[in-house]
C-alpha cells in the first residue's frame, strides 16, 4: 500500500516535472497582437520594391518576375523613362506594377528572377484585411519600404515594435 502510494507520488512528480520545467522555461506562444514575433531575415512575407542609393526606383519593368511567377499574380506595364526626370536608372521603368497578394503563394521566385534586386519579400506577415480589393498591391503600396528590423526582442525575451 505504502509502496503503491510512493510509486504514485513518484509518477506524479515525474509528470509534474515536465510541467514545472516548462513553467520556468521561456514561453513559445506570444501575447499577439501586443507582442509580435521576429521573423527570420529570410522569411518570405509581403513584397516590397526597392529604391537605389539615389532614391530612384530599382525596377526597370522587365517583367521577369511576372513571367517567373507560378501563379501569375504580378502584372507589369513598362514605359520609357524621361531622361530629364527618370523614374529609374536606365531606359525604362514600370509604369504599372501590381501584385495580387491573394493569389500569391509567397514562393519567392519573383525575387529570384529580378535582375536588379528590385522586388523583395520581407518579414511582414500581418496581411489580414476586411476587403479583397486591398490585396491588390499597387506600385505606391510596394514602394513604401519599411526600416529593416521593425521588431526587436526586449529584455524579457518578448518582441516589441521599435519606436521611431
Amino acid at each position, binding site marked *: 500500500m505504502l509502496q503503491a502510494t510512493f510509486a504514485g507520488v513518484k509518477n506524479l512528480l515525474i509528470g509534474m516535472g515536465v510541467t514545472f520545467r516548462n513553467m520556468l522555461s521561456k514561453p513559445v506562444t506570444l501575447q499577439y497582437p501586443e507582442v509580435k514575433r521576429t521573423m527570420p531575415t529570410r522569411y518570405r512575407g509581403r513584397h516590397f520594391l526597392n529604391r537605389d542609393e539615389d532614391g530612384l526606383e530599382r525596377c526597370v519593368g522587365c517583367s521577369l518576375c511576372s*513571367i517567373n511567377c507560378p501563379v501569375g499574380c504580378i502584372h507589369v506595364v513598362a514605359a520609357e523613362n524621361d531622361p530629364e526626370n527618370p523614374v529609374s536608372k536606365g*531606359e525604362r521603368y514600370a509604369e504599372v506594377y501590381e501584385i495580387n497578394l491573394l493569389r500569391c503563394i509567397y514562393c519567392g521566385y519573383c525575387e529570384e528572377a529580378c535582375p536588379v534586386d528590385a522586388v523583395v519579400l520581407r518579414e511582414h506577415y500581418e496581411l489580414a484585411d476586411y476587403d479583397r480589393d486591398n490585396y491588390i498591391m499597387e506600385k505606391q503600396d510596394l514602394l513604401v519600404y519599411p526600416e529593416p528590423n521593425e521588431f526587436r526582442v526586449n529584455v524579457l525575451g518578448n518582441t516589441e515594435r521599435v519606436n521611431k
Partner: protein
Amino acid sequence: MSDVTLTIDGKTVTVPKGTKVVDAAKQVEVDIPVFCYHEKIGPLGCCRMCLVEVEKMPKLMTACTMDVAPDMVVKTVGDKVEKAQKGVLEFTLLNHPLDCPVCDKGGECPLQDNTFKYGPPDTRMEFHRANNVKAAPLSPVITIDRERCIACQRCTAYSERIEQDRGLVMLNRGFHNEVNTFNNEPYDNRFSGNVIDICPVGALTNTDFRFKARTWDLENHDTLCANCGCNCNITLGTRLNEFMRIEARPNDAVDDGWICDKGRWGHHFMESKNKITAARENSVGKTEPTSFPNFPINAPAEQAAEKVIEIFKNIAEEHGPESIGFLGSPYATNEEGYLYQKLFRLLGTNNIDHKSYQDTPGLPIRHFDVEEIENSNIVLLIACDPTEELPILDLRIKKAVSRCGTKLLSLNDQDTALDKYAELKVKYKVGSEASAVDALAEGLARELGESIDFSSDLGPTGISDEDMKSLVEAVRSSMKICVVYNPAALSGDTSLRVKRLLSVIARIPTIECGAIPAAPATNAVGAVDMGLLPDFYPGGVPVSDSEKVKELWGENAPTKPGLSASEMIAKAKSGDLKALWIHRSNPVVDFPGGEQVVEALKNLDLLVVHDMLETETTQLAKIVLPSNGPGFDEGTTTNIGGRVQARRKALEANSIDDWKLIQVMLKKLGDESSYSRVAKVLNEISQKVPGYQEINSRFVGKQGCNREQVAGEEVSPGNVESAASSNGKLQLRVATYLFAHDKILDASSKLAYHFKPSSAFLNESDAGKIGVSNGDRVSISGNGTEMEAEVTIDNRCMEGGVVVPRISDEQGVNGLGNPDGSPAWVDIKKA
C-alpha cells in the same frame, strides 16, 4: 538541278546543288547557330558564328557560305567547333551591353539563345565596355541602339539585296563601324520595318512598340494584313485586348517573309477614335420614308439592323426591287461579301457592286499565284505601279528580275519606281490605254496569223511602231509570261480588253501564260469572286445563265442584270433608286464624281452605311451601323494571286461581328441557313461558289491555299470610241500613293511623316503651254470641282496628260473624275 548527298553529324541528307550547309543541316534537324545568315537574304559570312568542321579541310568553315558538295562530311559538334563557337560569342559579347532586362528583343533574341546554348559562362573582359549611342532614331518609326549592334550586317545586306536601294549601309571601319544612312538622313522607304524583324539583337527596334510589353507577354495572332491586295501574313501581338505590334509571318507563296511599312505601322485604325462603336440614326436626308418605324436609340446593332432590313424589304415591295441597291466592300472578307450578296439577292435585286471601275470575274488564262512571277521569264505590267499599290509585289518582281532571270516589260501611262528594272518600257498617253492594249493584242494576233481586226489605232496612244513591235516580239518570244494588270487604273472597258489580250496570248502555242489582276484593294479578287457584281453571281456565274442561277440559288433568284455602282449613283440622283446600303466603302471620296456622288446620296430616301470608321459617307447616312473591321473580324480573303487565306480575330470587339449581323438580317428575311461559326459560311461558299470547292477552314489553315480557277466569260468589248477633243485640257491620271492621308492613316498615324502635299506631275511641253514651272501652285479643275496642287515637271506621263497622286482624302482628286468612270479631262491654271 542535280542533288547532292552529304553527311552532317552522322546523318545523311540529300539536297539540291547550291544549297548552303546551314540549310542542309536544318533538314536533318541539326542546329547550326547563325547571326548574319538569313535564308532570304543569302550568305554573308560576317559573324563567324556558323563555323563547322569539314573533313579534309584544314580549318573550320563557315557553314552559311559553303555550298554542299558530294560526300562532304560535316561535324557541327566536337571540341574544335565548340571552342570556336565559344570564342566567337565571347568576341561578339565583348562590347554588347548587359541590358537584356530593358531590351525589347529580350525573349526572342538569337544572341540570347545562342549564348545560352553555345556561349562561354562569363567574360574575361576586364575593361569597361565601349559606350556608344543608345536609342537614336534611325527613322521616325525605327530606333537604333548602336551599343547593342554586333555588326552582323544583316540589315545592310537586306537593304542591298532585297530592297535593292542600299539606303542602309555600314559606315566607317573597324571599331567605329556603324549601321547608318547617308548623312544621317532618316531611313525611310516602303520596306524599312523588316530590318526590325531580321536584326538578331536588339539594335534595331520598333519605336512604336518600344517598351510597351515584353515579348512573352504578347498574345500572338496569326492573321493577315488588311492594307492591300497582297494580303501579307502577319503576326498581330496583343496584350490584354490591346494592340501592341505587328510582325511579318513568312509565307513564301504570298509575301516571301517581308511586309511593308504600311502593313507594320498602318494598323492603328483599329484603335482609332473615329471608330464607329454603336448603331445610330443621323438627322439627315429628306423626309422620313413612309415605312420608317421608330428607331430605338442606343439599340444594339443587331436590333437596329433587323429594323433597317425590314424597311429595305418594304421599299423593295413598294417601289420594286430595282429601287434598292447595295454597295459592297473590296476590303471586307469573303464571308461578309458572300452573305451580303445573298441578302440583297434575297430581296430580289441585282443592284450589287463594290467598285467604280469595270471588272469581270475569271480570266481566260490561268490565274497565276504571286510565286509564279519568280519562274516566269517575262512579267508584263499593264497600268500597274506595284511600289505604291502593292508593295510586296514590288519586292517579288525585284527578286525575280535580279535573281531569277525574269525580264520585266512595262506598258503604262506613267513612270514608276520599278521602271529601272524593266527590260522594255512602253509608255502610252494618259487615257489611251484601250487603244494601247488593243494594239498589243492585234500585233500578237497578227503574229499568230489570225486575221482579227480590233481596229486598233496607235495614233492616240503616242507609242511608236517600233516600241510596239519590240513589245509584241518580247511577249511572243517568251516561254512563260505573267501579265500583271491593275483593273482599277484602267478606264472604261479596258479591263475587258486586257482579258481579250490575254485570250490572244493564250492562243500562242509556245507560251505558258497566266495573269494576276492586281487591284490594290485588300480583297478585290474576293469581292469579284463572291459576286458583289450586278451581272454575276458568286464564282463568275452570269445572271443571264438563269438555269444555273436557279439551280444554285433557287427559283426566286433575280436574273435581270442589276445596276453597277456608277449607275446606281446616277439612278439615285434621278430619284429612281430609293434606298442604298453601303458596306465599308466611302464613295464620296473614293469614287469619281465627288460633289455629284454627295448629291446623289443626299437624294436617297434611305442610306445605310455599315462601316468601321467615320467617313464622309457616314455623315450622309440616315442609319450608321458599326462594323468591326480588321483585327476584330474573322473570315477569309482572296489575294491578287487567288490565294484564300484566313484573317483571324486578334482583338475582342464590343459590337457584333459583321457576318453575324448579316446573318441576323438573313434570318429576318426568312432565310433558313444558320451558321454557328464563320467556318460554316466558308463551308457554304465551298458548296455554292464555283472555284472554291476545295476551300475549307482546315485546308486554308495558317498558310492559305489557292482557289481553283473561276470561270471567265468570253468578252467582246466594242471598238474604242474616239476621244473627245481636248480643247487645251489635259487627261487626268489619278495615281496611288501608298501613304495617303486617309481614314486608315490618320493624322495621329506613326507613318504621318510620309504624308505629302498635293502635287501634279506634268510633261515639259504641257507645262510650257500652260506657262508653269517647277514648284508653281496650280489649280486643277474639272467636272465642276477644283483643287490645288504643286507642279513637278518630270515627264512622268506623255504630252496631253497630268498625273495627280491621291495623297489625302481632303485633296479630293477623285472629285475631278466623271461619275461614270470615263477618262476625265481637267483644266490646269496657274493659281
